[in-house]
């Protein structure tokens, strides 16, 4: 009578080592979409590299890479319509690119300058892109999960057919909001696709210390929704699985939990050194499964990839980022006034008074600050 714990099923995958698609599995996407996915993934990698370099040069304060996870989030988000909403975590830099957010909007955020949409309020990579239905990112892990559930509930109440996609990591599954967010979504049949990018690590904590569950996907049954494990380094597989989940959601059949099985190739962030706690061997194994190289072989086989094109993507990305960085560095900090704006829609009398206090100060501003996280 004891229901013992389930074992993890193999992640669904399509792309084989040699670049072929598994029998009967190829979603047969249009060449345009295939090329677009590839371009975004490569550009994402270039962007990530450049940003980390800027951090190492002391030009921006912090950065967080998605190295190795490009297929996982780009493939998922590509399953949506542009009118669908995203509730991202901080490790999906490819999504703004996919949604054609201007590079300047991305780069200005790193610098927290006067051109930053967020007015320099948050650390780098905590984007907000309303035009792209990309909801403001915050640092506390997991909180966006119940937001997505709520937005989905709202769309149902309004009778809209918008679909919502929330991203979070394996660490995020331990959060309060994972539990209540999936629970509410299940009970209210919210049109949400929950994408857990299981990259095996939460900073220095490995998956086995995060949960005793055999997989993330099986936790879906706690919430009465389907759970799917998919190879997160296989952009076609991720796309296909998410497409099905999106369709279900749009038809009013409720939420899905998708676990993309992948690996965090970089350190957690620019402040972290994974060599302190992580085995290099496993790292090398995952390198073999690089999502860009795998997808490249597939495109190559389909005659959609050439070396020239590859070079072109790299060149364009480097150039455009370079230009955007140049413009960003020329911009000043947000104005002192801006410090008090947007706490509420209107300034309160108290904030007006506090602003006056600050404006009245004379003498040089002191700036003996430390570095993150020291």
């Amino acid at each position: 009578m004891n229901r013992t714990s389930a074992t993890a099923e193999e992640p669904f995958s399509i792309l084989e080592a040699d670049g072929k698609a598994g029998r009967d599995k190829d979603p047969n996407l249009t060449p345009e979409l295939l090329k677009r996915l590839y371009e975004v993934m490569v550009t994402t990698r270039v962007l990530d590299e450049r940003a980390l370099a800027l951090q190492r040069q002391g030009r921006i304060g912090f950065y967080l890479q998605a190295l190795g996870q490009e297929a996982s989030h780009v493939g998922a988000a590509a399953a949506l319509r542009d009118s669908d909403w995203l509730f991202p975590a901080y490790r999906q830099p490819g999504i703004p690119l996919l949604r054609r957010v201007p590079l300047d909007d991305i780069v200005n955020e790193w610098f927290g300058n006067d051109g930053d949409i967020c007015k320099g309020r948050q650390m780098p990579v905590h984007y907000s892109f309303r035009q792209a239905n990309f909801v403001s990112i915050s640092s506390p892990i997991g909180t966006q999960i119940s937001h997505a559930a709520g937005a989905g509930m709202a769309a149902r109440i309004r009778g809209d057919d918008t679909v919502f996609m929330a991203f979070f990591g394996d660490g995020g599954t331990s959060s309060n909001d994972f539990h209540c967010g999936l629970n509410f979504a299940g009970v209210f049949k919210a049109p949400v696709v929950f994408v857990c990018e299981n990259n095996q690590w939460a900073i220095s904590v490995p998956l086995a210390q995060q949960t005793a569950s055999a997989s993330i996907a099986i936790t879906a049954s706690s919430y009465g929704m389907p759970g799917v494990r998919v190879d997160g380094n296989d952009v076609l597989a991720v796309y296909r699985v998410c497409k099905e989940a999106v369709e279900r959601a749009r038809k009013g059949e409720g939420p899905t939990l998708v676990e993309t099985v992948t690996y965090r190739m970089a350190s957690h962030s620019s402040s972290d050194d994974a060599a302190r706690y992580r085995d290099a061997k496993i790292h090398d194994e995952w390198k073999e499964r690089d999502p860009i190289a795998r997808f490249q072989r597939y495109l190559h086989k389909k005659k959609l990839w050439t070396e020239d094109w590859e070079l072109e993507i790299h060149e364009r990305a480097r150039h455009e980022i370079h230009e955007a960085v140049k413009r960003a560095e020329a911009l000043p900090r947000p104005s002192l006034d801006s410090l008090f704006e947007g706490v509420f829609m209107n300034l309160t009398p108290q904030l007006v008074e506090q602003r006056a206090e600050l404006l009245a100060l004379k003498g040089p501003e002191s700036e003996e600050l430390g570095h993150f996280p020291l």
Partner: protein
Amino acid sequence: MTTMTLLEAVTDALRTEMRNDDRVVVFGEDVGRKGGVFLATQGLQDEFGAERCFDTPLSECGIVGTAIGMALYGIRPVAEIQFLDFIYPAFDQIVSEAAKMRYRSGGEYTCPLVIRSPYGGGIRGGHYHSQSSEAYFCHTPGLKVVIPSTPADTKGLLIAAIRDEDPVIFLEPKRIYRTAKGDVPEGEHVVPLGKGRVVREGTDVTVVAYGAMVAICEKAADEAQKRGRSIEIIDPRTLVPLDEPLILESVKKTGRCVVVFEAPRTCSYGSEIAAIVAEKAIGHLEGPVVRVGGFDTPFPYSLEHLYMPDVRRVLLGIEKTFNW
């Protein structure tokens, strides 16, 4: 005008705004079929259907988290937390998300939502059905905090809160849910956030009080009057943003200030009022600024009547501003 209780005024406000704006939805634990444990949402599910007035799973974190998602998407959530004592599982969502959404996104995303919750002692609810934790919310930039003390204000302030473009914590003094009765305007009635109310005028001492403490202070003022003290009572109604001029002008006139509240004393809203007065009216003060509040202990059950400020303690506080 209709005479109603403070509790009925809550329902009236919700009904009025649900009729007025079809984006308004009401939800929480037991608010649907049962109409809430205090019956504040009674009749709403019948009138507006289970899509607009519904029960949730037992998770305050989920209630507030999904409310934020709804507000982001553009509807107007009014969430009930059954007792304020149970709001803490949602604290992260309130403090880290609702309060900061507008600021952190440079105004791209906003959180117009209302969290309603009965608060305060006086109903023999003991430890976990009696607390007054307004200070936590007042200390959090980005939240408005509202506490009515009369039925008319309840309706007017709750409607204003629902229409506000920012997150509002709306705290209802449950002790006077049924004992506070008064005339309430029918239909539209808005009391703007940020404006206090002079409950009674006086010349000798300014007493600042809100929620269920206003009525206690009125009784104390009657008593004080008999002893020749003329008391001015100010009810700020909105704790954040505060109507500072109303309080400061009164204190400048009377030269004395007592703040009355139910919460534990340390870092309370009473401390805040005292600090403002000590910073901005010091030249007019003729005595100490006295806080009459709960004690720095958890809320008790059997000795509740001693824990909460009563007429005796308010009178003693008033006397302290003269004899110190």
